[in-house]
């Protein structure tokens, strides 16, 4: 019983602290403000908790959940005080905002203006449907022992060792492990993978008092509703009506691949998808409104991406072009575009670049090879994998109709991309993400992941929340955030 309460505190306090700090960023009570705060607060709070664990280990203190939790509790009080002073604890009511894709505006002829009860009823039904989904996933998370492959070969191995030894023992290469005379180092095939996901699994088990797979899986279960809340909040801030926002949340949380990564907890892909997706949401808000706090959220979450998975570094870098066009006055866009094109031509003609980054390694960016330390070496060869890629994204039951929605959004949004900076930014994030996927599966040996139906969907999952939010911005006209009327 006591252990249960400790686990609840270990997960609840970072969540609450993160929420209050995010809420404190805005002086006014905005529609969607609290759901946004709860959503972003979950990820920021837990990341802060495991960062404190890391610092604790670096200092040489024994691994313990209580000290980081106390620090976060204190920070939460400070954040709560700030939130109170800046905006007060007001809650925007659900049905005050109109406009955009509400049923009121669908069609003036024949599709009569829907009464408020219809929208409310649909809203509640959707909530019930999503709640049922989460209950099913919760049972899987709680009952099923650690199941997916990489979880019991990599992410869960480190978490369990650290949990059982109460120490962040180092994981080294197999060669170093063989040579290690002390026997204190452990090894993994993927020993160089970032440790955030293992720390996320470790964190609640420290509070529990020992390794327990169900307890270790709880952060994955929380990630789903938190992602939904963050997405909902950003959608409402964008100007979407409550029902519209919830429909998009349903589209997101109903994705079979996302559900699978919650149910079969232990992989890193769900975390990267959620963190990257929320970073993109914040970036697009910043691009549209200039709200610096949205920029801060985007930056913090983008910085967390490489800590979750190695490819998170590349995904985070994809946000730079989008940020650049937002910073650049429109009259300089042709110069910017021309400069990029010229750089690419020079890069091609000169045979690419090779350089060494101190402490990281040699970087190759040539027309024949891309090599990034920690990520690997990729030789460029074209592989005709259109059929398996299309099959996985458009035909099999992995993504419902997401692929088709994105195609429609691309066609709908392309004519308007130069209308406003945020539209171009959104298209750049989307376009560069899709280009990276194309390059990975069509131009490198990773084509096997597509042919063998292995990582293709997991990599696409990283982009799914971001792409869905971008689709929302294409269809939903952005509006000035509505202040609470209370």
């Amino acid at each position, binding site marked *: 019983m006591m252990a249960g309460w400790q686990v609840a505190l270990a997960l609840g306090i970072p969540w609450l602290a993160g929420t209050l700090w995010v809420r404190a960023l805005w002086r006014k009570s905005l529609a969607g403000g609290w759901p946004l705060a709860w959503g972003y607060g979950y990820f920021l709070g837990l990341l802060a908790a495991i960062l404190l664990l890391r610092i604790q280990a670096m200092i040489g203190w024994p691994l313990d959940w209580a000290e980081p939790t106390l620090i976060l509790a204190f920070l939460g009080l400070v954040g709560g005080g700030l939130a109170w002073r800046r905006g007060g604890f007001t809650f925007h009511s659900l049905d005050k905002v109109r406009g955009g894709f509400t049923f009121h505006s*669908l069609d003036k002829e*024949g599709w009569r203006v829907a009464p408020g009860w219809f929208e409310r009823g649909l809203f509640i039904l959707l909530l019930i449907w999503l709640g049922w989904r989460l209950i*099913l996933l919760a049972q899987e998370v709680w009952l099923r022992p650690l199941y997916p492959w990489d979880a019991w070969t990599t992410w869960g191995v480190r978490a369990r060792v650290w949990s059982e030894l109460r120490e962040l023992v180092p994981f080294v290469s*197999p060669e170093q492990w063989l040579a290690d005379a002390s026997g204190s180092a452990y090894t993994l095939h993927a020993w160089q993978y970032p440790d955030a996901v293992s720390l996320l699994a470790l964190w609640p088990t420290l509070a529990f008092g020992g390794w327990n797979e169900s307890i270790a899986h709880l952060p994955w279960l929380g990630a789903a509703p938190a992602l939904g809340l963050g997405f909902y909040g950003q959608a409402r801030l964008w100007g979407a009506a409550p029902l519209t926002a919830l429909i998009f949340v349903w589209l997101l949380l109903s994705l079979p691949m996302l559900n699978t990564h919650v149910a079969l907890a232990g992989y890193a892909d769900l975390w990267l998808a959620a963190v990257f997706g929320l970073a993109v949401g914040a970036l697009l808000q910043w691009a549209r409104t200039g709200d610096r706090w949205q920029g801060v959220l985007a930056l913090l979450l983008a910085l967390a991406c490489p800590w979750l998975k190695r490819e998170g570094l590349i995904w985070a870098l994809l946000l730079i072009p989008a940020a650049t066009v937002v910073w650049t006055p429109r009259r300089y866009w042709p110069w910017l575009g021309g400069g990029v094109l010229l750089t690419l031509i020079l890069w091609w003609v000169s045979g690419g670049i090779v350089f060494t980054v101190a402490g990281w390694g040699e970087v190759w960016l040539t027309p024949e090879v891309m090599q990034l330390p920690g990520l690997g070496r990729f030789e460029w060869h074209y592989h005709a994998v259109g059929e398996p890629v299309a099959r996985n994204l458009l035909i099999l039951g992995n993504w419902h109709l997401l692929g088709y929605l994105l195609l429609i959004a691309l066609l709908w949004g392309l004519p308007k991309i130069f209308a406003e900076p945020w539209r171009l930014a959104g298209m750049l994030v989307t376009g560069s993400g899709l280009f990276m996927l194309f390059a990975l599966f069509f131009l490198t040996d990773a084509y096997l992941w597509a042919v063998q139906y292995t990582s293709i969907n*997991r990599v696409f999952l990283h982009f799914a929340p971001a792409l869905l939010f971008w689709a929302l911005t294409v269809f939903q006209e952005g509006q000035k955030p509505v202040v609470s009327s209370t």
Partner: protein
Amino acid sequence: MKLAQIERLPWLLWLTTLALGAALTVLAVLLYYRMGGQSEANIPLRWTGADVQLIGGQGTVTPAGLEISSIGSQGLVLWMPSRRINAGVYGAFAWNLVGLDSRHPLRLIWRTVEGQVRQATQAMAASAGQMPLRTEPEWQGTVLTMGLFIPGPYPAPITVSGLELRPARLTAGEWWNRLWEEWTTREDWSQGSINFAAGATSRPLGSLTLLIVIWLSLSAGLYAISRLSAVRPLTPGPFLVLFLLGWLLLDMRWQWELVGRTERTVARFADKDETERRLADLDGDIYQFSRDIRQRLPESPARLFIISNDPTGFQAGRVRYHLLPHNGYMGFTQPPDATRAGDYVLLMAPLPGVRYDRQKQALEWRDGRLPVEERYAAALGTLFQVRGD
């Protein structure tokens, strides 16, 4: 009701075009399969000798096929490349093995997507021929890999010239039964689920996603044509509702799939403590073996070398995980040189390249020898401790 009246009630027009779209989709699907469209059902799967993987023997790829010089007493297995196969679509298996005589009847084997190995009830006593599959009771569901078992010993060379899986000729009713079976089959979680959540099969006969897209596209097209022909404006609402309806239908199926999977999970693991759940899991035998091993290991973490013929495989990896926090690693097919006195070595069976000499108390393999003391032996493997001498 006249068309003009329908047009004045857009919701009725919408419903009408929805129904028409569904009817057109069903018609299109029937015509597609009956006319032999490009599909899983009408393309035979063919493999040459160069495609197959040989287990239990050695072969050389030549222009004629895979040449196998001889077959040992234990026989050998030819595994075709992994490819998810909808068993109901294929009705016959054909083979051509030059040089094989009828005294060594082949047996067709296959591994299901759940990881179970099945075999045909009838053996094939000829070097070439075709055997029916639809009469095989275990030939159903989704097959992951197909193989051929050739019993030995056989001293003469044989050449694997070609293997083929031939589609079944199905009637319209049988097609419909296959489709319905595919749409209503619920799978349990598998090790592949984390990579794709395709539902009943990863190579569907009738992808529900694609069918719904076709249906919605036809309905949207019909609706748009009707509205435009009546000189009425098009608004996004009806199309949006169509799209959401399609998503909802797919999500309802997925929810039904999830309910089934959760029911299996609850039935298997509910009301059990952590140990009982692990024993009830898919590797319960490996977990029990690991528990027995753990009792022979010291309390504090010990260095443990897990040796197996498949170091990156499921069994070695699960044993390593279950024995944590013992400091184990399973990347070995034979004991490495870096073992020290006091370390533990776990040999996972079968491991024909390494043997234990009881008299000398040593593990021996082609390039080496390691003095050890046996600590525990079981069907899955044997635990040794490295001796100091």
